Protein backbone atom coordinates (compact mmCIF):
# COMPACT_ATOMS: atom_id res chain seq x y z
CA UNK A 1 0.00 0.00 0.00
CA UNK A 2 2.71 2.43 1.07
CA UNK A 3 4.86 1.35 -1.84
CA UNK A 4 2.01 1.96 -4.22
CA UNK A 5 1.34 5.50 -2.99
CA UNK A 6 5.05 6.20 -3.15
CA UNK A 7 5.10 5.04 -6.74
CA UNK A 8 2.24 7.38 -7.57
CA UNK A 9 4.01 10.26 -5.86
CA UNK A 10 7.18 9.43 -7.74
CA UNK A 11 5.35 9.35 -11.03
CA UNK A 12 3.62 12.63 -10.29
CA UNK A 13 6.94 14.31 -9.40
CA UNK A 14 8.49 13.03 -12.55
CA UNK A 15 5.71 14.43 -14.75
CA UNK A 16 6.01 17.77 -12.97
CA UNK A 17 9.74 17.88 -13.56
CA UNK A 18 9.43 16.72 -17.14
CA UNK A 19 6.98 19.50 -17.99
CA UNK A 20 9.22 22.02 -16.23
CA UNK A 21 12.26 20.72 -18.10
CA UNK A 22 10.56 20.88 -21.50
CA UNK A 23 9.35 24.44 -20.85
CA UNK A 24 12.79 25.50 -19.61
CA UNK A 25 14.41 23.94 -22.67
CA UNK A 26 12.08 26.03 -24.86
CA UNK A 27 13.11 29.22 -23.07
CA UNK A 28 16.84 28.36 -23.32
CA UNK A 29 16.31 27.89 -27.03
CA UNK A 30 14.49 31.22 -27.32
CA UNK A 31 17.28 32.98 -25.43
CA UNK A 32 20.13 31.34 -27.30
CA UNK A 33 18.75 31.13 -30.85
CA UNK A 34 19.39 34.77 -31.87
CA UNK A 35 23.02 34.65 -30.71
CA UNK A 36 23.66 31.36 -32.49
CA UNK A 37 21.73 31.69 -35.72
CA UNK A 38 23.98 34.44 -37.11
CA UNK A 39 26.91 32.00 -37.21
CA UNK A 40 25.70 29.70 -40.04
CA UNK A 41 24.22 32.68 -41.91
CA UNK A 42 27.63 34.40 -41.84
CA UNK A 43 29.18 31.51 -43.78
CA UNK A 44 26.52 31.73 -46.47
CA UNK A 45 26.64 33.41 -49.85
CA UNK A 46 26.89 37.14 -50.42
CA UNK A 47 23.84 37.15 -52.68
CA UNK A 48 21.19 35.91 -50.29
CA UNK A 49 20.30 36.17 -46.65
CA UNK A 50 19.01 32.74 -45.82
CA UNK A 51 18.92 30.19 -43.09
CA UNK A 52 20.16 27.57 -43.53
CA UNK A 53 22.44 28.82 -46.32
CA UNK A 54 22.34 26.84 -49.57
CA UNK A 55 26.09 27.10 -50.05
CA UNK A 56 28.91 27.85 -47.64
CA UNK A 57 31.78 30.26 -48.16
CA UNK A 58 33.94 32.85 -46.44
CA UNK A 59 32.78 35.57 -48.86
CA UNK A 60 31.10 37.69 -46.23
CA UNK A 61 34.22 37.84 -44.06
CA UNK A 62 36.34 38.65 -47.10
CA UNK A 63 34.00 41.53 -47.97
CA UNK A 64 33.97 42.75 -44.36
CA UNK A 65 37.74 42.82 -43.98
CA UNK A 66 38.34 44.42 -47.38
CA UNK A 67 35.73 47.19 -47.19
CA UNK A 68 37.04 50.39 -45.67
CA UNK A 69 33.60 51.52 -44.48
CA UNK A 70 33.62 48.41 -42.22
CA UNK A 71 37.29 48.12 -41.23
CA UNK A 72 37.62 51.77 -40.18
CA UNK A 73 34.77 51.49 -37.65
CA UNK A 74 36.25 48.16 -36.49
CA UNK A 75 39.64 49.76 -35.73
CA UNK A 76 38.00 52.78 -34.11
CA UNK A 77 35.85 50.59 -31.83
CA UNK A 78 38.89 48.53 -30.91
CA UNK A 79 40.97 51.62 -30.11
CA UNK A 80 38.20 53.25 -28.09
CA UNK A 81 37.47 50.02 -26.19
CA UNK A 82 41.14 49.39 -25.33
CA UNK A 83 41.78 52.92 -24.03
CA UNK A 84 38.43 52.98 -22.19
CA UNK A 85 39.26 49.66 -20.54
CA UNK A 86 42.67 50.83 -19.34
CA UNK A 87 41.37 54.13 -17.90
CA UNK A 88 38.23 52.58 -16.37
CA UNK A 89 40.20 49.78 -14.70
CA UNK A 90 42.83 52.12 -13.28
CA UNK A 91 40.07 54.34 -11.84
CA UNK A 92 37.76 51.53 -10.70
CA UNK A 93 40.20 49.43 -8.64
CA UNK A 94 41.15 52.08 -6.03
CA UNK A 95 37.58 53.42 -5.98
CA UNK A 96 36.19 49.95 -5.32
CA UNK A 97 38.76 49.46 -2.55
CA UNK A 98 37.69 52.73 -0.89
CA UNK A 99 34.01 51.80 -1.20
CA UNK A 100 34.54 48.44 0.53
CA UNK A 101 37.12 49.41 3.18
CA UNK A 102 36.27 53.02 4.13
CA UNK A 103 33.27 54.87 5.45
CA UNK A 104 32.90 58.55 4.67
CA UNK A 105 30.19 61.17 4.47
CA UNK A 106 28.33 61.20 1.17
CA UNK A 107 29.44 57.65 0.34
CA UNK A 108 25.95 56.45 -0.55
CA UNK A 109 25.29 59.48 -2.71
CA UNK A 110 28.56 58.97 -4.55
CA UNK A 111 27.87 55.26 -5.08
CA UNK A 112 24.43 56.19 -6.44
CA UNK A 113 25.97 58.63 -8.89
CA UNK A 114 28.66 56.23 -10.09
CA UNK A 115 26.11 53.42 -10.48
CA UNK A 116 23.50 55.61 -12.20
CA UNK A 117 24.32 54.39 -15.75
CA UNK A 118 23.05 50.94 -14.70
CA UNK A 119 19.55 52.37 -14.16
CA UNK A 120 19.09 55.61 -16.09
CA UNK A 121 18.41 54.97 -19.80
CA UNK A 122 21.45 55.41 -22.03
CA UNK A 123 19.49 57.72 -24.28
CA UNK A 124 19.14 60.25 -21.45
CA UNK A 125 22.91 60.26 -20.88
CA UNK A 126 23.51 60.23 -24.62
CA UNK A 127 21.52 63.42 -25.19
CA UNK A 128 23.00 65.14 -22.12
CA UNK A 129 26.56 64.27 -23.11
CA UNK A 130 25.87 65.31 -26.69
CA UNK A 131 24.60 68.75 -25.61
CA UNK A 132 27.42 69.16 -23.09
CA UNK A 133 30.25 67.94 -25.31
CA UNK A 134 29.25 70.23 -28.16
CA UNK A 135 30.40 73.15 -25.97
CA UNK A 136 33.91 71.68 -25.90
CA UNK A 137 33.84 70.52 -29.54
CA UNK A 138 34.18 66.95 -28.24
CA UNK A 139 31.30 65.52 -30.30
CA UNK A 140 32.54 63.57 -33.28
CA UNK A 141 35.95 62.93 -31.69
CA UNK A 142 37.48 59.71 -30.41
CA UNK A 143 38.41 61.52 -27.17
CA UNK A 144 34.74 62.35 -26.55
CA UNK A 145 33.78 58.71 -27.13
CA UNK A 146 36.49 57.49 -24.73
CA UNK A 147 35.45 59.89 -21.95
CA UNK A 148 31.76 58.99 -22.28
CA UNK A 149 32.47 55.25 -22.50
CA UNK A 150 34.72 55.38 -19.43
CA UNK A 151 31.87 56.89 -17.40
CA UNK A 152 29.48 54.30 -18.83
CA UNK A 153 31.58 51.17 -18.13
CA UNK A 154 32.88 52.31 -14.72
CA UNK A 155 29.94 50.92 -12.65
CA UNK A 156 30.26 47.43 -14.21
CA UNK A 157 33.99 47.25 -13.53
CA UNK A 158 33.51 48.60 -10.00
CA UNK A 159 30.80 46.05 -9.16
CA UNK A 160 33.02 43.15 -10.28
CA UNK A 161 36.16 44.42 -8.52
CA UNK A 162 34.21 45.28 -5.31
CA UNK A 163 32.87 41.73 -5.20
CA UNK A 164 36.48 40.53 -5.37
CA UNK A 165 37.60 42.85 -2.56
CA UNK A 166 34.73 41.78 -0.33
CA UNK A 167 36.09 38.24 -0.43
CA UNK A 168 39.56 39.31 0.79
CA UNK A 169 40.58 38.89 4.41
CA UNK A 170 41.19 42.39 5.88
CA UNK A 171 43.43 40.87 8.57
CA UNK A 172 46.13 40.27 5.95
CA UNK A 173 46.10 44.01 5.24
CA UNK A 174 46.28 44.91 8.95
CA UNK A 175 49.05 42.38 9.38
CA UNK A 176 51.15 43.84 6.57
CA UNK A 177 50.79 47.36 7.96
CA UNK A 178 51.55 46.16 11.46
CA UNK A 179 54.78 44.67 10.15
CA UNK A 180 55.75 48.11 8.93
CA UNK A 181 54.61 48.14 5.31
CA UNK A 182 53.33 51.55 4.21
CA UNK A 183 49.81 51.72 2.81
CA UNK A 184 51.06 51.87 -0.78
CA UNK A 185 53.41 48.92 -0.36
CA UNK A 186 50.68 46.94 1.39
CA UNK A 187 48.26 47.60 -1.49
CA UNK A 188 50.79 46.62 -4.14
CA UNK A 189 52.05 43.45 -2.43
CA UNK A 190 49.01 42.20 -0.51
CA UNK A 191 45.78 43.48 -2.07
CA UNK A 192 46.55 43.69 -5.78
CA UNK A 193 48.01 40.17 -6.28
CA UNK A 194 44.91 38.64 -4.71
CA UNK A 195 42.67 40.74 -6.95
CA UNK A 196 44.10 39.84 -10.35
CA UNK A 197 41.20 37.54 -11.32
CA UNK A 198 38.55 40.16 -10.45
CA UNK A 199 40.50 42.94 -12.14
CA UNK A 200 40.87 40.76 -15.23
CA UNK A 201 37.14 40.03 -15.29
CA UNK A 202 36.30 43.71 -14.73
CA UNK A 203 38.59 44.78 -17.55
CA UNK A 204 37.15 42.17 -19.93
CA UNK A 205 33.61 43.37 -19.32
CA UNK A 206 34.70 46.99 -19.69
CA UNK A 207 36.11 46.11 -23.11
CA UNK A 208 33.00 44.20 -24.18
CA UNK A 209 30.55 46.89 -23.02
CA UNK A 210 32.50 49.68 -24.68
CA UNK A 211 32.86 47.66 -27.89
CA UNK A 212 29.12 46.87 -27.99
CA UNK A 213 27.85 50.28 -26.82
CA UNK A 214 25.47 51.82 -29.37
CA UNK A 215 23.28 54.60 -28.00
CA UNK A 216 25.86 57.06 -26.64
CA UNK A 217 28.16 56.38 -29.61
CA UNK A 218 25.21 56.99 -31.98
CA UNK A 219 24.69 60.47 -30.52
CA UNK A 220 28.40 61.33 -30.48
CA UNK A 221 29.31 59.83 -33.86
CA UNK A 222 30.77 62.08 -36.51
CA UNK A 223 31.79 61.30 -40.10
CA UNK A 224 35.20 59.98 -39.00
CA UNK A 225 34.11 58.58 -35.63
CA UNK A 226 31.56 55.94 -36.54
CA UNK A 227 32.11 52.97 -34.25
CA UNK A 228 31.44 49.43 -35.45
CA UNK A 229 28.17 49.24 -33.50
CA UNK A 230 26.95 52.58 -34.90
CA UNK A 231 27.84 51.48 -38.43
CA UNK A 232 26.01 48.20 -37.80
CA UNK A 233 22.97 49.99 -36.35
CA UNK A 234 22.55 52.14 -39.45
CA UNK A 235 23.37 49.20 -41.74
CA UNK A 236 20.55 47.09 -40.24
CA UNK A 237 18.15 50.01 -40.68
CA UNK A 238 18.99 50.98 -44.23
CA UNK A 239 20.56 48.00 -46.04
CA UNK A 240 19.92 44.51 -44.76
CA UNK A 241 23.28 43.37 -46.11
CA UNK A 242 24.43 39.80 -45.45
CA UNK A 243 27.81 41.23 -44.33
CA UNK A 244 26.07 42.16 -41.06
CA UNK A 245 25.89 38.43 -40.30
CA UNK A 246 29.70 38.26 -40.39
CA UNK A 247 29.98 41.25 -38.04
CA UNK A 248 27.37 39.69 -35.75
CA UNK A 249 29.30 36.44 -35.60
CA UNK A 250 32.47 38.30 -34.65
CA UNK A 251 30.57 40.07 -31.85
CA UNK A 252 28.97 36.84 -30.62
CA UNK A 253 32.33 35.09 -30.51
CA UNK A 254 33.72 38.04 -28.55
CA UNK A 255 30.86 37.74 -26.02
CA UNK A 256 31.40 33.99 -25.78
CA UNK A 257 35.11 34.44 -25.05
CA UNK A 258 34.38 37.03 -22.36
CA UNK A 259 31.73 34.76 -20.84
CA UNK A 260 33.96 31.68 -20.74
CA UNK A 261 37.02 33.52 -19.44
CA UNK A 262 34.82 34.98 -16.73
CA UNK A 263 33.49 31.56 -15.73
CA UNK A 264 37.06 30.24 -15.63
CA UNK A 265 38.28 33.18 -13.53
CA UNK A 266 35.46 32.73 -11.06
CA UNK A 267 36.24 29.06 -10.72
CA UNK A 268 39.86 29.92 -9.98
CA UNK A 269 38.97 32.31 -7.17
CA UNK A 270 36.62 29.72 -5.70
CA UNK A 271 39.41 27.19 -5.58
CA UNK A 272 41.78 29.73 -4.04
CA UNK A 273 39.34 30.54 -1.27
Amino acid at each position, binding site marked *: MAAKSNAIKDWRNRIFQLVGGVLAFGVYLFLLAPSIIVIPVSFGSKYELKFPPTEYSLDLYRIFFSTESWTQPLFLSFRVAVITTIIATVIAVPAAYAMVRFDFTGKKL*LIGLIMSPLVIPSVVFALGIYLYFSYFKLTGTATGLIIAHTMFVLPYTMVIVSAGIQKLDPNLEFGAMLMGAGRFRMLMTVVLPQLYPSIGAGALFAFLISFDEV*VISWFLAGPTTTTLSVKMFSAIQWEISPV*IAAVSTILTVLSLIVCLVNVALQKNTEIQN
Partner: protein
Amino acid sequence: MATNAARNAGPFIAPAAILSLLVALVPLVFIFYTSTVGGTSTEAFVSILESNLFRRAIKTTVIVSLLASLISLVLGYIVALHLARQSARRRAALMVLVLLPFWTSILVKSYAFTIILGREGLVNSFLSWMTGAEVALRLIFNRIGVIVGMTNYLTPLVVFPVLASLLAIDPALYRAAEVMGAKPGRIFLTVTLPLSAPGILAGVLSAAVMSLGFFIVPALLGGRQDLMLANLVDFYTREVLDWNVASAVGVILFVMVAVFAVPAMLLRRRQQQGAH
Protein backbone atom coordinates in the same frame (compact mmCIF):
# COMPACT_ATOMS: atom_id res chain seq x y z
CA MET B 1 36.93 59.84 12.75
CA ALA B 2 34.72 60.38 9.74
CA THR B 3 36.99 63.12 8.42
CA ASN B 4 40.01 60.91 8.99
CA ALA B 5 38.42 58.11 6.98
CA ALA B 6 37.40 60.59 4.30
CA ARG B 7 41.00 61.77 4.05
CA ASN B 8 42.17 58.18 3.68
CA ALA B 9 39.51 57.39 1.09
CA GLY B 10 39.97 60.66 -0.79
CA PRO B 11 42.86 59.77 -3.11
CA PHE B 12 41.31 56.38 -3.89
CA ILE B 13 37.91 57.66 -4.80
CA ALA B 14 38.77 61.06 -6.31
CA PRO B 15 39.26 60.02 -9.97
CA ALA B 16 36.01 58.03 -10.07
CA ALA B 17 34.14 60.81 -8.28
CA ILE B 18 35.43 63.51 -10.63
CA LEU B 19 34.62 61.43 -13.69
CA SER B 20 31.08 60.70 -12.50
CA LEU B 21 30.43 64.29 -11.51
CA LEU B 22 31.68 65.71 -14.80
CA VAL B 23 30.42 63.07 -17.22
CA ALA B 24 27.29 61.67 -15.51
CA LEU B 25 25.89 64.41 -13.27
CA VAL B 26 26.63 67.45 -15.44
CA PRO B 27 24.93 65.94 -18.54
CA LEU B 28 21.84 65.16 -16.44
CA VAL B 29 21.79 68.75 -15.18
CA PHE B 30 22.20 69.88 -18.78
CA ILE B 31 19.06 68.02 -19.82
CA PHE B 32 16.98 69.56 -17.03
CA TYR B 33 18.43 72.96 -17.86
CA THR B 34 17.80 72.65 -21.60
CA SER B 35 14.28 71.26 -21.16
CA THR B 36 13.26 74.40 -19.30
CA VAL B 37 15.38 76.72 -21.46
CA GLY B 38 17.47 77.70 -18.44
CA GLY B 39 14.83 77.25 -15.77
CA THR B 40 12.51 79.91 -17.15
CA SER B 41 10.12 78.19 -19.50
CA THR B 42 7.70 75.27 -19.53
CA GLU B 43 7.08 75.74 -23.23
CA ALA B 44 8.84 72.54 -24.28
CA PHE B 45 6.76 70.46 -21.87
CA VAL B 46 3.51 72.12 -22.93
CA SER B 47 4.24 71.56 -26.59
CA ILE B 48 5.02 67.83 -26.24
CA LEU B 49 2.11 67.16 -23.93
CA GLU B 50 -0.10 68.53 -26.68
CA SER B 51 1.55 66.55 -29.47
CA ASN B 52 -0.08 63.36 -30.70
CA LEU B 53 3.29 61.83 -31.47
CA PHE B 54 4.31 62.13 -27.82
CA ARG B 55 1.00 60.83 -26.49
CA ARG B 56 1.23 57.78 -28.72
CA ALA B 57 4.88 57.20 -27.76
CA ILE B 58 4.19 57.34 -24.03
CA LYS B 59 1.23 54.99 -24.42
CA THR B 60 3.33 52.56 -26.47
CA THR B 61 6.16 52.78 -23.94
CA VAL B 62 3.92 51.93 -20.98
CA ILE B 63 2.00 49.11 -22.69
CA VAL B 64 5.05 47.51 -24.34
CA SER B 65 7.15 47.77 -21.15
CA LEU B 66 4.40 46.23 -19.07
CA LEU B 67 3.80 43.34 -21.47
CA ALA B 68 7.49 42.66 -22.06
CA SER B 69 8.22 42.71 -18.30
CA LEU B 70 5.38 40.31 -17.49
CA ILE B 71 6.25 37.86 -20.27
CA SER B 72 9.91 38.01 -19.20
CA LEU B 73 8.81 37.26 -15.66
CA VAL B 74 7.05 34.07 -16.73
CA LEU B 75 9.91 32.92 -18.98
CA GLY B 76 12.54 33.90 -16.42
CA TYR B 77 10.72 32.08 -13.66
CA ILE B 78 10.57 28.87 -15.69
CA VAL B 79 14.33 28.99 -16.26
CA ALA B 80 15.13 29.94 -12.65
CA LEU B 81 13.01 27.07 -11.35
CA HIS B 82 14.80 24.64 -13.66
CA LEU B 83 18.23 25.96 -12.67
CA ALA B 84 17.40 25.81 -8.96
CA ARG B 85 16.70 22.08 -9.23
CA GLN B 86 20.04 21.16 -10.82
CA SER B 87 23.23 20.18 -9.04
CA ALA B 88 25.68 23.05 -8.59
CA ARG B 89 27.87 21.69 -11.39
CA ARG B 90 25.07 21.38 -13.94
CA ARG B 91 23.68 24.72 -12.88
CA ALA B 92 27.00 26.44 -13.62
CA ALA B 93 27.05 24.81 -17.06
CA LEU B 94 23.42 25.70 -17.85
CA MET B 95 24.02 29.23 -16.59
CA VAL B 96 26.19 29.82 -19.68
CA LEU B 97 23.03 29.38 -21.76
CA VAL B 98 21.57 32.39 -19.96
CA LEU B 99 24.79 34.41 -19.68
CA LEU B 100 25.83 34.20 -23.33
CA PRO B 101 22.62 35.82 -24.64
CA PHE B 102 22.81 38.31 -21.75
CA TRP B 103 26.22 39.49 -22.94
CA THR B 104 25.50 39.31 -26.66
CA SER B 105 25.16 42.70 -28.34
CA ILE B 106 21.57 43.87 -28.62
CA LEU B 107 22.33 44.67 -32.27
CA VAL B 108 23.23 41.06 -32.99
CA LYS B 109 20.02 39.83 -31.39
CA SER B 110 17.85 42.39 -33.17
CA TYR B 111 19.46 41.52 -36.49
CA ALA B 112 18.97 37.81 -35.78
CA PHE B 113 15.28 38.42 -35.11
CA THR B 114 14.90 39.98 -38.55
CA ILE B 115 16.14 36.64 -39.90
CA ILE B 116 13.93 34.61 -37.57
CA LEU B 117 10.72 36.63 -37.73
CA GLY B 118 10.93 38.20 -41.20
CA ARG B 119 8.42 37.59 -44.02
CA GLU B 120 10.45 34.68 -45.32
CA GLY B 121 12.03 34.07 -41.95
CA LEU B 122 12.51 30.89 -39.99
CA VAL B 123 9.14 30.96 -38.22
CA ASN B 124 7.14 31.59 -41.38
CA SER B 125 9.11 28.97 -43.36
CA PHE B 126 8.57 26.44 -40.61
CA LEU B 127 4.83 27.15 -40.46
CA SER B 128 4.56 26.97 -44.25
CA TRP B 129 6.35 23.61 -44.22
CA MET B 130 4.12 22.33 -41.41
CA THR B 131 0.82 23.41 -42.94
CA GLY B 132 1.80 22.96 -46.57
CA ALA B 133 0.33 26.39 -47.32
CA GLU B 134 2.06 29.73 -47.81
CA VAL B 135 2.25 31.35 -44.37
CA ALA B 136 3.46 34.95 -44.16
CA LEU B 137 2.62 36.23 -40.70
CA ARG B 138 3.66 39.78 -39.97
CA LEU B 139 5.89 39.25 -36.93
CA ILE B 140 8.26 42.13 -37.38
CA PHE B 141 8.18 45.91 -37.83
CA ASN B 142 5.20 45.92 -35.51
CA ARG B 143 4.53 45.60 -31.81
CA ILE B 144 5.02 41.80 -31.79
CA GLY B 145 8.59 42.23 -33.03
CA VAL B 146 9.34 44.82 -30.35
CA ILE B 147 7.94 42.66 -27.54
CA VAL B 148 9.74 39.51 -28.72
CA GLY B 149 13.05 41.38 -28.97
CA MET B 150 12.64 43.05 -25.60
CA THR B 151 11.56 39.85 -23.86
CA ASN B 152 14.65 38.13 -25.16
CA TYR B 153 16.80 40.85 -23.64
CA LEU B 154 14.92 41.11 -20.31
CA THR B 155 14.46 37.42 -19.40
CA PRO B 156 18.02 36.93 -18.05
CA LEU B 157 17.51 40.02 -15.87
CA VAL B 158 14.59 38.22 -14.22
CA VAL B 159 16.41 34.88 -13.93
CA PHE B 160 19.21 36.20 -11.67
CA PRO B 161 17.15 37.59 -8.73
CA VAL B 162 14.49 34.84 -8.91
CA LEU B 163 17.16 32.12 -8.90
CA ALA B 164 18.81 33.75 -5.88
CA SER B 165 15.57 33.73 -3.91
CA LEU B 166 14.72 30.15 -4.98
CA LEU B 167 18.13 28.91 -3.83
CA ALA B 168 17.60 30.63 -0.47
CA ILE B 169 14.57 28.45 0.29
CA ASP B 170 15.35 25.82 2.93
CA PRO B 171 15.06 22.39 1.24
CA ALA B 172 13.63 21.01 4.51
CA LEU B 173 10.43 22.92 3.75
CA TYR B 174 9.95 20.92 0.55
CA ARG B 175 10.53 17.64 2.38
CA ALA B 176 8.13 18.65 5.15
CA ALA B 177 5.42 19.59 2.65
CA GLU B 178 5.93 16.31 0.81
CA VAL B 179 5.84 14.22 3.97
CA MET B 180 2.61 15.95 4.92
CA GLY B 181 1.20 14.72 1.61
CA ALA B 182 1.18 17.87 -0.52
CA LYS B 183 1.22 17.29 -4.27
CA PRO B 184 3.86 19.00 -6.45
CA GLY B 185 1.37 21.60 -7.69
CA ARG B 186 0.33 22.49 -4.16
CA ILE B 187 3.95 22.65 -2.96
CA PHE B 188 4.68 25.06 -5.79
CA LEU B 189 1.75 27.30 -4.91
CA THR B 190 2.15 27.28 -1.14
CA VAL B 191 5.94 27.04 -0.66
CA THR B 192 7.93 27.91 -3.78
CA LEU B 193 5.90 30.80 -5.14
CA PRO B 194 5.36 32.83 -1.93
CA LEU B 195 8.96 32.34 -0.75
CA SER B 196 10.34 33.53 -4.07
CA ALA B 197 8.16 36.66 -4.06
CA PRO B 198 11.05 39.04 -3.23
CA GLY B 199 12.98 37.73 -6.25
CA ILE B 200 9.89 38.05 -8.45
CA LEU B 201 9.36 41.64 -7.38
CA ALA B 202 13.03 42.55 -7.82
CA GLY B 203 13.13 40.87 -11.23
CA VAL B 204 9.97 42.44 -12.60
CA LEU B 205 10.92 45.91 -11.31
CA SER B 206 14.36 45.81 -12.87
CA ALA B 207 12.84 44.53 -16.12
CA ALA B 208 10.36 47.44 -16.06
CA VAL B 209 13.14 49.96 -15.39
CA MET B 210 15.20 48.62 -18.28
CA SER B 211 12.29 48.34 -20.69
CA LEU B 212 11.17 51.98 -20.36
CA GLY B 213 14.43 53.20 -21.88
CA PHE B 214 14.64 50.76 -24.81
CA PHE B 215 15.94 52.37 -27.95
CA ILE B 216 17.59 49.85 -30.28
CA VAL B 217 14.86 47.19 -30.31
CA PRO B 218 11.93 49.50 -31.21
CA ALA B 219 14.11 51.23 -33.80
CA LEU B 220 15.06 47.96 -35.52
CA LEU B 221 12.13 45.62 -34.90
CA GLY B 222 9.23 48.08 -34.58
CA GLY B 223 7.23 49.94 -37.19
CA ARG B 224 6.75 53.67 -37.50
CA GLN B 225 3.84 53.57 -35.07
CA ASP B 226 5.84 51.72 -32.37
CA LEU B 227 8.20 54.56 -31.45
CA MET B 228 9.00 54.57 -27.74
CA LEU B 229 10.10 57.54 -25.63
CA ALA B 230 13.81 56.86 -26.20
CA ASN B 231 13.25 56.93 -29.97
CA LEU B 232 11.40 60.21 -29.60
CA VAL B 233 14.45 61.73 -27.88
CA ASP B 234 16.51 60.70 -30.90
CA PHE B 235 13.84 61.93 -33.34
CA TYR B 236 13.67 65.42 -31.82
CA THR B 237 17.46 65.63 -31.59
CA ARG B 238 18.26 64.46 -35.09
CA GLU B 239 15.32 65.22 -37.34
CA VAL B 240 13.44 68.10 -35.71
CA LEU B 241 16.64 69.59 -34.24
CA ASP B 242 14.65 70.85 -31.26
CA TRP B 243 16.90 70.22 -28.26
CA ASN B 244 14.51 71.77 -25.76
CA VAL B 245 11.77 69.32 -26.64
CA ALA B 246 14.24 66.41 -26.89
CA SER B 247 15.45 67.24 -23.38
CA ALA B 248 11.89 67.52 -22.10
CA VAL B 249 11.19 63.99 -23.35
CA GLY B 250 14.44 62.90 -21.68
CA VAL B 251 13.33 64.43 -18.38
CA ILE B 252 9.96 62.67 -18.55
CA LEU B 253 11.70 59.37 -19.28
CA PHE B 254 14.07 59.97 -16.37
CA VAL B 255 11.17 60.61 -13.97
CA MET B 256 9.29 57.49 -15.16
CA VAL B 257 12.38 55.34 -14.59
CA ALA B 258 12.88 56.87 -11.13
CA VAL B 259 9.32 55.92 -10.16
CA PHE B 260 10.21 52.24 -10.69
CA ALA B 261 13.87 52.38 -9.66
CA VAL B 262 13.34 53.80 -6.18
CA PRO B 263 11.13 50.95 -4.90
CA ALA B 264 13.50 48.46 -6.57
CA MET B 265 16.46 49.91 -4.65
CA LEU B 266 14.59 50.03 -1.34
CA LEU B 267 13.60 46.42 -1.86
CA ARG B 268 17.18 45.39 -2.52
CA ARG B 269 18.34 47.18 0.62
CA ARG B 270 15.71 45.42 2.71
CA GLN B 271 16.68 42.05 1.29
CA GLN B 272 20.35 42.67 2.01
CA GLN B 273 19.56 43.64 5.57
CA GLY B 274 17.40 40.53 5.92
CA ALA B 275 20.27 38.35 4.73
CA HIS B 276 22.72 39.59 7.38
